[in-house]
């Protein structure tokens, strides 16, 4: 098995030359065509994508459709080619990519593979993606779509999966790579970083969550509607998903509004099945919420409200904690304990996002955006405070 993996890595590396010579525009077109194919609701691949992704992720088909539209839809030729041209280094030219980029995928966001795999390919790296065996659906669909989109470039991308007992193979895989991009728990990222060769670049995306802030001037009806979408997206299982919302001079009324919006979304974007094992965590979370403050719950969603209190990360699956906050000036101190884990800060009723960003404490560098956009960062957005090409570019000074 180790030899087969080394052989596969060598084959992919061999395809790197053609990928690089194809140029940025052709690679952008190759990727955009494949993404459009998967996202098309009326294509055979598009229908298969919805079914397969819903089955493997546990999300509802409507939720998967939404995820594909919002993730793959913006990855157009124009956008991708613009990103490919974006990085510049005065007095330097781009070096050719290394032998191979190994991408280790996490299993919780069904569309995670799109950018994770797509960007290294866009910048000319052959990619070997490692997915967990029950969660490789989009990575596999991309294999098929990319082969159809531009068969000459298709040899630069493969997916591997193997049983957890064979995890030792990951070390073999990583040793073949000059760049490693890893998604997963902090613990997994730490392990993968240790297994990566000393000369390879490593970009880790560990644990994370999102939070929201609703300023005193916000339109509560609009903010509740937008926040509910951020909570419902991916059933609150992603690392950008909001778990806590602070409302300046807030009351239970806002929590009740969010609950009503979640009730609407339960119809249009139904929640998927909840693993039995997680229902216990949900029960505990809701129970403590009911004890500490007010709990507004429905079938498949809940919103708690407390005037003040410790933050309590929910088990996901559309359970949101709303807390009151006297003044926006208190927000940085509330966010400080979240540190690097805070990946997304959705806001409403704040006129100057830049000024708010400047108040954030050391180590806290989320993407700051309007509510309703927390789960749909634009293609060129920073991810974990890093540009999309982090780890993928080296420069030759001239």
């Amino acid at each position: 098995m180790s030899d087969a993996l080394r052989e596969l890595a060598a084959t992919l590396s061999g395809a790197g030359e053609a990928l690089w010579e194809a140029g940025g525009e052709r690679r952008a077109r190759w990727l955009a065509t494949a993404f459009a194919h998967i996202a098309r609701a009326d294509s055979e691949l598009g229908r298969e994508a919805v079914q397969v992704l819903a089955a493997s992720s546990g999300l509802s088909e409507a939720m998967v459709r939404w995820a594909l539209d919002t993730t793959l839809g913006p990855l157009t030729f124009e956008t991708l080619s613009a990103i490919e041209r974006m990085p510049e280094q005065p007095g330097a030219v781009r070096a050719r990519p290394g032998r191979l980029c190994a991408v280790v995928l996490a299993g919780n966001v069904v569309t995670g593979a799109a950018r994770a795999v797509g960007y290294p390919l866009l910048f000319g790296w052959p990619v070997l993606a490692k997915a967990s065996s029950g969660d490789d659906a989009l990575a596999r669909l991309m294999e098929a779509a990319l082969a159809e989109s531009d068969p000459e470039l298709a040899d630069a991308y493969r997916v591997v999966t193997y049983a957890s007992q064979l995890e030792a193979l990951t070390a073999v895989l990583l040793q073949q790579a000059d760049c490693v991009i890893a998604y997963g728990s902090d613990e997994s990222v730490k392990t993968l970083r240790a297994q990566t060769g000393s000369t390879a670049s490593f970009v880790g995306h560990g644990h994370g969550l999102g939070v929201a802030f609703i300023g005193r001037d916000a339109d509560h009806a609009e903010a509740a509607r937008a926040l509910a979408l951020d909570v419902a997206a991916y059933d609150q299982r992603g690392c950008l998903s909001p778990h806590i919302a602070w409302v300046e001079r807030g009351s239970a009324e806002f929590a009740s509004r969010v609950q009503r919006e979640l009730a609407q979304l339960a119809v249009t974007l139904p929640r998927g099945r909840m693993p039995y094992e997680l229902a216990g965590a949900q029960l505990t979370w809701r129970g403590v919420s009911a004890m500490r403050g007010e709990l507004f719950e429905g079938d498949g969603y809940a919103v708690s409200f407390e005037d003040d209190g410790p933050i309590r990360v929910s088990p996901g699956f559309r359970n949101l904690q709303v807390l009151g906050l006297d003044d926006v000036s208190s927000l940085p101190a509330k966010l400080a304990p979240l540190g690097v884990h805070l990946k997304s800060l959705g806001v409403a009723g704040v006129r100057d996002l830049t000024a708010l960003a400047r108040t954030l404490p050391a180590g806290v560098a989320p993407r700051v955006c309007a509510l309703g956009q927390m789960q749909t960062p634009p293609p060129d957005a920073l991810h974990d405070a890093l540009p999309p090409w982090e780890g993928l570019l080296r420069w030759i000074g001239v």
Partner: protein
Amino acid sequence: MTLRARILSLIERLAGGARDDAARDALLWELFEHQRANVPPYARYVKQRLHALNDLGDIPALPTDAFRFARIASRPLEEDVLVFRSSGTTQDARSSHALQDLSLYDAAAQAAARHALFPDRERMALLILAPHERELPDSSLSYMLSRFVEWFGDDGSSHVWPMQGPELERLRARLQHAVEAGMPVALLGTSFAFVHALDALQEQFALPAGSRIMQTGGFKGRSREVAADEMRTLLRTTFGVERIVSEYGMTELSSQLYAEGEHLWSPGWTRVSVVHPETLQPLPHGETGLVRIDDLANIDSVAFLQTADLGVLEAGGLRLLGRAPAAVARGCSITADELLGGG
């Protein structure tokens, strides 16, 4: 006669393993009314969670996690005589269970242990593989094991801790002495302490007939993990003991459950059920759900507790299937424990 006195009387009456569910349930009803009136966080919880009140299963059971976030007590702070805290790496992550009177705790612990662990012997040598209560004064396990030494131990009893260096050698000497003298011993401790002992001793003992082992708790990253069946085999092989009893307890409870096989025996003053995790409806025998325990001995906090443990009720009793993992297929999303640095 006060409610406390009547509960104490029931515990004493059921100490031998007898059951009187009608008497237990009557006291549980009374205790519910007492606690919803006198434990403010529980009153708030009941107000939001109570939808009907036709049988005991309708009484809202408080998640054990609630003890991490609020003082769950019917009496004021100044009356506390002891506060048990769960293990954890940060203060925020630890449950606190305040006790204002130890009489029910002691009576329940003594009666259950007498029935499940020491039905055949008034006293014997107890070797405790856990910290003494002096070292961990807020550990309910250390408190209970220290009481066991008082109630069931003879002069040969002692704590052996930690499982290394001179203490390990002392354990070895105690075991050898028991073998040579033909005096049975009871080894009681946490699962991870036994793993450390098994790894360090590297020899086998044929402890005299009548010897027994009580293990409790999980591993919590403090030793390698060993599957339950393998653990039993290792304990039998290493110590030559047939009787191995598992104890199930928690900081938030005042009573303990015991298993000699795969089913837990619950004392007659507790009421154990399994509920559906989303609807909270009681599940019939054979269906897996979350374990709920109503414990009459929890008189000064809340008697109706919802655990996060998965279990199934079978003819032999409750079969525990372990803690419901909070991190199933979560990938890069974070869990509360991870954020708090506990877990």
